[in-house]
């Protein structure tokens, strides 16, 4: 039987606020345990939560970027359950009145574009509706990139800044009712999300094909074995006994607050910039993706392109030569900007374009700039790397080469025009590699065909 897969993701994202959401303690990963604590986050008797406004700012940012409808009034709720790491015996969350609802995110998966709906955002989670593990992977990584783009999270999965739970159900094609869903936990990388879902779909397909039922349960993904295991069944499922958190007032978000946050968003999202690079500048999708890996990278590209007067050339240089140097040297975009300001790189690209130096010489100049911090024109001048583009000088060299190769000239005249390459090589050799190859080509052709 063929089945249709329905996947929902619940993405938990740690906001980049300096202090925790309900107390003044810092939120630095890697500090020794129990150093950033106070009576409030320890849930000591008599302590009360106080909402951090910056956390709300960030949540509004995410909501605006994902085109969600931000509610003027939302309510924090207590989610009650016992757990050793849950000091109060409940988690402050949002339940039936979340901060924002009804957004979407566009993704590309398997060559197709899909708009994935977002049911809701509250202070810590989003949920979407997807049809394949590949889409889930694409959605999760697109969402991560977006949240990093707008500066609300560092998106670091090793440190747990971003987590994801997924639920998946199958239904026979054509059936309207959803099948029983299983919830998957412990999906702490993009690859695991996809692999766990693939495994789970295989498992459910086998069960259904054998006429068995899928149990409603929570399953844990084991990445070593690439399998999912039962964590708890529905009978053990929690009744979280949600109720409005009486220690916090309803969260009121006025229009002014939303507008204030809107002003702090980047002028253009990376996904928009990427789109623009492909359509307006004709860049390859892969190159455009590389150049929009972050806002500073895209800014760097655009500044370089302006200085070079050529977007395509700037794109090729950055995604090729420059990126290779960054990987080699192990430095990031911030360091790159100080070592090789975009104006300097743009200047170099312009010199290659106008033929002052050849492409391969340009790479040498780039090395030198990165090493010495010199200006490209200065490097070219001081090291005599400039190409010979003086037609008189080149014609002189060409005459010498032609005179020294009578046999080749005769063969060329007899129709073996591929010998042009031989002559070009000889002229370049004679000029110590500094001759402008395009110019040599043209002048030689004129001379030989005469």
């Amino acid at each position, binding site marked *: 039987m063929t089945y249709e897969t329905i996947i929902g993701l619940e993405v938990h994202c740690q906001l980049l606020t300096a202090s925790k959401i309900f107390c003044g303690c810092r939120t630095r990963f890697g500090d020794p345990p129990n150093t950033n604590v106070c*009576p409030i986050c*320890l*849930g*000591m*008797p*008599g*302590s*009360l*939560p*106080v*909402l951090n406004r910056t956390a709300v700012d960030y949540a509004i940012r995410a909501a605006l970027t994902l085109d969600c409808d931000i509610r003027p009034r939302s309510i924090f709720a*207590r989610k*009650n359950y*016992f757990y*050793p790491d849950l*000091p*109060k*015996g*409940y988690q402050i969350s949002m339940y039936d009145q979340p901060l924002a609802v009804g957004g979407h995110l566009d993704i590309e998966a398997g060559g197709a574009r899909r708009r994935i709906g977002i049911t809701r955002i509250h202070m810590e989670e989003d949920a979407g509706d997807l049809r394949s593990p590949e889409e889930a992977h694409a959605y999760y990584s697109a969402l991560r990139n977006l949240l990093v783009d707008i500066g609300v999270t560092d998106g670091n999965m090793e440190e747990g800044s971003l987590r994801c739970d997924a639920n998946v159900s199958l239904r026979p094609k054509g059936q309207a009712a959803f099948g029983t869903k299983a919830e998957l936990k412990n999906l702490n990388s993009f690859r695991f999300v996809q692999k766990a879902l693939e495994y789970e779909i295989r498992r459910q397909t086998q069960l259904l094909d054998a006429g068995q039922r899928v149990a409603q349960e929570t399953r844990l993904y084991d990445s070593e074995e690439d399998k999912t295991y039962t964590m708890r069944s529905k009978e053990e499922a929690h*009744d979280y*006994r*949600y*109720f409005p958190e*009486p*220690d*916090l*007032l309803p969260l009121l978000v006025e229009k002014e607050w939303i507008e204030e946050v809107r002003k702090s968003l980047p002028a253009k999202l990376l996904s928009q910039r990427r789109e623009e690079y492909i359509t307006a500048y004709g860049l390859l999708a892969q190159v455009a993706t590389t150049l929009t890996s972050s806002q500073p990278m895209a800014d760097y590209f655009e500044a370089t392109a302006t200085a070079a007067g050529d977007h395509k050339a700037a794109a090729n240089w950055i995604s090729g030569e420059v990126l290779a140097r960054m990987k080699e040297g192990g430095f990031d975009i911030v360091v790159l900007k100080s070592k090789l300001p975009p104006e300097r790189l743009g200047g170099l690209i312009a010199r290659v374009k106008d033929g002052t130096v050849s492409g391969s010489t340009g790479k040498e100049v780039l090395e030198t700039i990165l090493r010495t911090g010199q200006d490209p024109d200065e490097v070219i001048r001081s090291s005599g790397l400039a190409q010979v583009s003086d037609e008189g000088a080149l014609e002189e060299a060409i005459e010498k080469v032609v005179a020294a190769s009578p046999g080749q000239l005769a063969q060329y005249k007899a129709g073996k025009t591929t010998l042009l390459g031989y002559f070009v090589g000889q002229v370049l050799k004679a000029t110590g590699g500094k001759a402008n190859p395009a110019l040599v080509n043209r002048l030689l052709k004129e001379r030989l065909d005469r």
Partner: protein
Amino acid sequence: MTDPSRATIAELRDLVVSGRMSASEICKAHLGRTRAVDDRVKAYRSVLERQALAEADAVDRARRESRPLGPLAGVPIAVKDVLCTQGTPTTCGSRILENFVPYYDATCVARLREAGAVIIGKTNMDEFAMGSSTENSAFEVTRNPWDLTRVPGGSSGGSAAAVAAGMVPAALGTDTGGSIRQPAALCGVPGLKPTYGRVSRYGLVAFASSLDQAGPFGRTVADVARILQVIAGHDPLDSTSAPEPVPDYLGGLERGIAGLRIGVPKEYFPAGLDAEVHGSVRAALAAAERLGASIDEVSLPHTEYAIPTYYIIATAEASSNLARYDGVRYGLRAAGAPDIAQLFRKTRNAGFGAEVKRRIMLGTYVLSSGYYDAYYLKGQKVRTLIRRDFEDAFRRVDLLITPTTPSAAFRIGEKVDDPLAMYLSDIFTVTINLAGLPGMSIPCGLTRDGLPIGAQIIGPRFGEDVVLRAAAALEGAMQFRDRHPPLPR
């Protein structure tokens, strides 16, 4: 010379400021009184003798060095054991917190200290403030100073009894459904539950977060006003504390009751009301009329739903608030648990008393899926109706006056096995918490058996100033201040 165990805060502060008596002497006098009577009354969980004397000493030093003295300089104050006091045990009357020592002060306690008060002890209470007699304390039963065979009321029974017995001039209690006003009435002292949000709840160990409020007991209405002045006001650590400015409570006290419109809600004078209670409250109303107030009957039609509504909302919140006592971080930890689930179960089973367990179960039930709409949600709706009853009434009148309790102090053990009868002793007080209003009990007479009777004065939101004004006028008219419990001097 003034007997410090009967002096008012103003008199005590005058003694300190003028140098006629040192804060240390005043502290010692109250400690002496406590030693003399508390083995019978059992108002205190812990008497902080050494610490209190050090604090009194600091006040005396400040005076000698001519540094400014706070409005409560050298005044001993007792604090209910549900309010966190830095460095001293805060048990909440429970085994589960028997050894819990917070490293922070509740905001209201910190404000008392800043005002120069001397925290003299922590008072006994029903476990986690759940009860109306102090019999639910895991440690001891506090006795009513007027009749040691009777309860002082609860849950702030220790604070009320300590003030009534002359062991301390003022005390803090907390009130979730009547826990200040009911013991105040039964012990014959003034006690005020402020508007919800008037006093910070930071450091008040939560029973029911949307109802809990700390407030003062005093020897006089003016003393209550003085304490409220110090503890009231917004606290950034409590999001539900109100930003409204705090008026000058003391300055308004002399303005009297003349011209005020007083409402008498007919639902609070049911047919079966104790005749002596009825008579005393009517006498108070007559006094108010003589002093120039007008009396009108009003109706609060949803009053009959108050007790069930209260027990749904309060227990729901309690079931969640008390989840943190699991033996992991502080307080009691049961020995010999093989795993974490067993640790939780054994700790909570051993640490909580019967009434607390009953309420946790009730609260868990009303929040459970399938029952939430029928109980919790409906309870919230009725709460809104009750609040509207009061809003409607306060469009017509300035204050309401009712009995504080349906009867005077009952005997120890009388209702302990009948939870419902116990719950009904809060029948006139819980509505005020549900509506978030200020309410105060003042003594208005004695029964033939010599037991105090309390009248409850209810004001509109943030109307503590009017409530206190009327209370001061009635206090003068009722002449109760010369009556003292029959304890040895």
